[in-house]
């Protein structure tokens, strides 16, 4: 006569199987992107390693506890411990051993490894140890990016050279935001009145995604950025271009677009360096065409998407601070073609 698996075994199964499946699904889908276990810097590699050790230890402890509970179920008709019987001192000893001694040892080790060692790499870098500074200023709901010492200003996209210790200075223009590029660095909050700093330093060229991670209002969900790490020569070329003023429009359509930009209100919020557009409320658009995405990674940067955005920003990112300007389809097309030429 087969006995049905009792609550203990069923409990084990109900926990173990889904856990395994989820790990497979999750890990399978997560190589890269914004995952903290796909590190691309020394700092994040150490943190990822710390995580795997902590996960391993946690699995051992959790499994141990589940095993004890399973034993309790199997031995439910027999009082006392297996092997030791009804010796109260052993039961008490288990509580002291598992409840005080072992945790103390493990926690001291964890504290030393994480809060005394790894923390040295995740702290703000000593200013003298870095060779480039980038200012990232959080706004509702986009990132302003500046390179002090140059004229370069852009938005939602940070470029850094590989193998360079970059001092990232995180501040905010309005509410609290949090700069988080998981593959490159730990997160840092952007707090009014504070200048917080973290280190970007990666040997691997590539594009890394970041996302605001402190609730900052209606479009917190759509406040993302990319960090592009590239060879120093490519970086310097990019930076030099960023520092230049806006290109003059080449075609007639672009010239009309420029006139509309200045006359229909865009210049009141957006800056095009080298022109009369000096608005400081929205992102700098001087080199808009170099960016891969718009509206802080909400939509790709293509003529169609840009036109849709200009025509009705609230439909795409409801609640953002760009109003509906009441432009006609033709006007939108002209402005878009002007902006798409701003390389």
């Amino acid at each position: 006569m087969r006995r049905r698996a009792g609550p203990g075994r069923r409990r084990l199964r109900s926990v173990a199987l889904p856990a395994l499946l989820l790990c497979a699904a999750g890990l399978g889908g997560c190589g890269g992107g914004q995952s903290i276990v796909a590190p691309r810097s020394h700092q994040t590699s150490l943190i990822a390693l710390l995580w795997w050790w902590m996960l391993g230890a946690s699995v051992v402890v959790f499994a141990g506890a589940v095993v004890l509970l399973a034993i309790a179920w199997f031995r439910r008709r027999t009082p006392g411990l297996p092997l030791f019987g009804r010796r109260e001192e052993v039961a008490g000893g288990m509580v002291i051993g598992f409840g005080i001694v072992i945790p103390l040892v493990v926690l001291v080790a964890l504290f030393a490894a994480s809060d005394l060692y790894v923390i040295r790499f995740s702290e703000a870098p000593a200013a003298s140890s870095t060779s480039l500074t980038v200012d990232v200023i959080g706004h509702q709901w986009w990132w302003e990016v500046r390179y002090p010492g140059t004229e370069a200003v852009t938005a939602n996209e940070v470029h850094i050279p590989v193998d360079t210790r970059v001092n990232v200075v995180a501040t905010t223009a309005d509410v609290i935001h949090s700069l988080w590029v998981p593959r490159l660095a730990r997160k840092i909050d952007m707090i009014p009145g504070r200048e917080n700093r973290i280190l970007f330093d990666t040997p691997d060229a590539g594009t890394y995604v970041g996302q605001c991670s402190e609730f900052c209002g209606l479009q917190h969900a759509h406040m993302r950025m990319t960090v592009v790490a590239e060879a120093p020569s490519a970086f310097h070329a990019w930076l030099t271009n960023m520092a230049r003023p806006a290109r003059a429009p080449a075609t007639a359509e672009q010239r009309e677009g420029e006139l509309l930009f200045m006359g229909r209100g865009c210049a009141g919020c957006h800056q095009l360096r080298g022109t009369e557009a000096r608005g400081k409320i929205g992102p700098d658009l001087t080199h808009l065409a170099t960016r891969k995405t718009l509206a802080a990674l909400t939509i790709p940067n293509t003529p169609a998407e840009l036109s849709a955005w200009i025509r009705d920003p609230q439909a795409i990112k409801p609640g953002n601070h760009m109003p509906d300007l009441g432009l006609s389809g033709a006007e939108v097309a002209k402005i878009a073609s002007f902006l798409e030429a701003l390389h």
Partner: protein
Amino acid sequence: MSGALPRGAATGEPPPAAGQGLSLQPPRSALARSGEAAARMAAERKAQPSGIWGMALFLCAETMLFVGVIGSYFYLDFRVKQWPPAGVKLPETLDPSVLTAVLVLTSVPMALAARRARAGRPRATFGLIALAAFVQCGYLAFQLHQFVAEAHTLHPQASAYASAYFTLLGLHHAHVLLGILFDLGLLFWLRTGLSDYRITGVRAVALYWHVINVIAVAVLITEISPSL
């Protein structure tokens, strides 16, 4: 020896000896309807009455409130370079200190009132509380006048310093007002004599004043700290 004793077995502890536990004659506070009876009742009790415990715990919460506001004051102080901000007059030290001393001294009549109440003397209790309340009202009137006058020159909306300064003082004055209202409540009941319940009330309000007066000193030190 197993810890799992069979159900129903006694623990092996001896039953309470005769003369302990329920063979005593516990007092019933409700039957104490005169001053002397109430005083005897209060004296017989071995533990503090519930009302004293309740007031003590309430005072723990209020103390934490002041720990918070004083802590916030100094937190903001240490966060900025200039405190008070430039252009703001440093606080006076003499006047506030004298006023606080006057308030703290009212703990004396309140403590005496509690003792008289325990001795079963309603009229003496009434008089002492009335004296304390009179001085406390005078103190509060003075302080409120100062408060309003200062708010016209140093606006609370001018800086974090001003906000913290006026909130600190405002919270304290609110607690003094509450204490005066307690005093008036007591005076209202004491018109018709003492009872055990009222003795506890007097003692509880005296306790309230003692703690508020200690807090008053802490508030004073905080308030004048830039001038120290």
